[in-house]
């Protein structure tokens, strides 16, 4: 199954057969004070800097989250999208819990965006599916619903199925639903990552959809987060993850290595290319 996202002129195909597409996570105000202060001053130079450095580090798509206290993201999200699309050309993933901000951003966005995210709650389905349909966007379906978060992979699968079914009824194409199995910190629950890995496997084998996840937080509360994130990323890709939302500066090497090991990078072209792009040029 192939999910196609579009920028102004570029197209990114997320294929369940791989290779992995990286959605850069860094345009997000959490622990990025500079992003908040620059945006508050109407200064988009830092957003563009984050965009460019992530693309250089291997991001194919960029997540855009500009929600923080005291800001009207129904204005700021579309404004940020406009500035980004005037300067760079990768597809965008619009990230907000506010459906009106998502809609306002879709109104001005060129190409085909990904909505982050719709979940199984009635309120979320009712607010976002018609918007996705109207603007021809793809959606991320997050495996939680009105009952909260379940730790049973079969139940998470059932929520994914429900979101897909409702999306189809709304007229959204099946391939335009990307499933998020929900990743949680392993420091508080030794089985948290296993539950996610099993959900990925179930969604991959039974539904065959593309799969994303914001996986950087699984290492919360532990040292050497990069090693932990890389291990989880590799196992997730092996089980069917196709378009993680992550920090490309830290994860692309592990992603390229996994693609190569899984036979999705003939002659190690992408692996070598990435390695060389990170080395200082020598003459």
């Amino acid at each position: 199954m192939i999910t196609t996202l579009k920028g102004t002129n570029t197209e990114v195909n997320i294929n369940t057969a791989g290779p992995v597409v990286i959605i850069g996570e860094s345009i997000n105000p959490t622990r990025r004070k500079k992003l908040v202060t620059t945006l508050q001053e109407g200064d988009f130079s830092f957003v563009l800097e984050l965009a460019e450095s992530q693309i250089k580090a291997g991001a194919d798509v960029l997540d855009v989250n500009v929600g923080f206290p005291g800001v009207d993201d129904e204005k700021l999200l579309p404004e940020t999208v406009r500035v980004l699309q005037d300067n760079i050309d990768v597809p965008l993933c619009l990230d907000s819990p506010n459906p009106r901000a998502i809609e306002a951003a879709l109104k001005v966005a060129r190409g085909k965006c990904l909505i982050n995210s719709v979940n199984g709650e009635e309120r979320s389905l009712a607010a976002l599916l018609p918007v996705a349909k109207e603007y021809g966007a793809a959606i991320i379906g997050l495996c939680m619903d009105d009952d909260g978060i379940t730790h049973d992979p079969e139940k998470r699968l059932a929520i994914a199925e429900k979101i897909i079914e409702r999306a189809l009824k709304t007229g959204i194409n099946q391939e335009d639903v990307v499933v998020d199995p929900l990743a949680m910190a392993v420091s508080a629950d030794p089985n948290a990552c296993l539950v996610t890995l099993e959900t990925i496997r179930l969604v991959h084998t039974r539904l065959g959809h593309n799969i994303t996840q914001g996986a950087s937080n699984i290492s919360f509360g532990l040292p050497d987060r990069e090693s932990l994130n890389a291990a989880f990323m590799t196992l997730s890709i092996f089980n069917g993850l196709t378009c993680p939302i992550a920090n490309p500066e830290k994860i692309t090497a592990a992603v390229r290595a996994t693609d190569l090991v899984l036979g999705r990078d003939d002659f190690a072209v992408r692996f070598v290319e990435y390695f060389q792009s990170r080395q200082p040029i020598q003459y």
Partner: protein
Amino acid sequence: MSELLTQLSYCVEFGKIDKASPYPPNLKGQEGADEIARRALDEGIKPDEILDKALIPAMAIVGDKFTKKIIYVPQMLMAAKAMSSAMKHLKPYFQSGETKRKGKFIIGTVSGDLHDIGKNLVAMMIEGAGWEIIDLGVDVNTDKFLKAINDNPGAVVGLSALLTTTMEHMKKTVEAIKGNYSGVTTLVGGAPVTMDYCLKIGADFYSPDPQGAVNYLNQFALK
């Protein structure tokens, strides 16, 4: 100090819950906080003494080690579980009023936010400092906070938010608390929260780590 209290303190610091618990590996098969606390009470050690001389100091060490990154979340959770397994033997004395706690602490993650790890860690640390915890859970709306304050006069309130997009709810809830119960002290925390934000929304205290909240409450209890 009694040998038992020293042992109990050690079990809490290193997260030995009970005899059956395999953690930590070097204490495998030995008694844990659960059995030792029971035995201490049976031998006539006062519950006050168990709390003040074993549990509270042990948890203070745990909080300090966490702040200094000597231990991490999994070790801290095991220590907190060991503390709880000892604390349960003290509950009857709390209920009868024979042993007094320092006060009540209401805690919850704000509306729209489902993150619970940080909130739970703070709750455990504050319980381990001798406070009674009223844990409202996650996705707690303003009304639930207000009701809990109404039901527990004099309680201090802690609010957690882990998303920049849910911090707005923290502001609304703090404002509602201050508007309805002006004397209530509020503490805020969570990854995106800062001292700046705490002051801006009119909350009383912010700490980047659980031990900071404990230290503040210890001062508060002395007032």
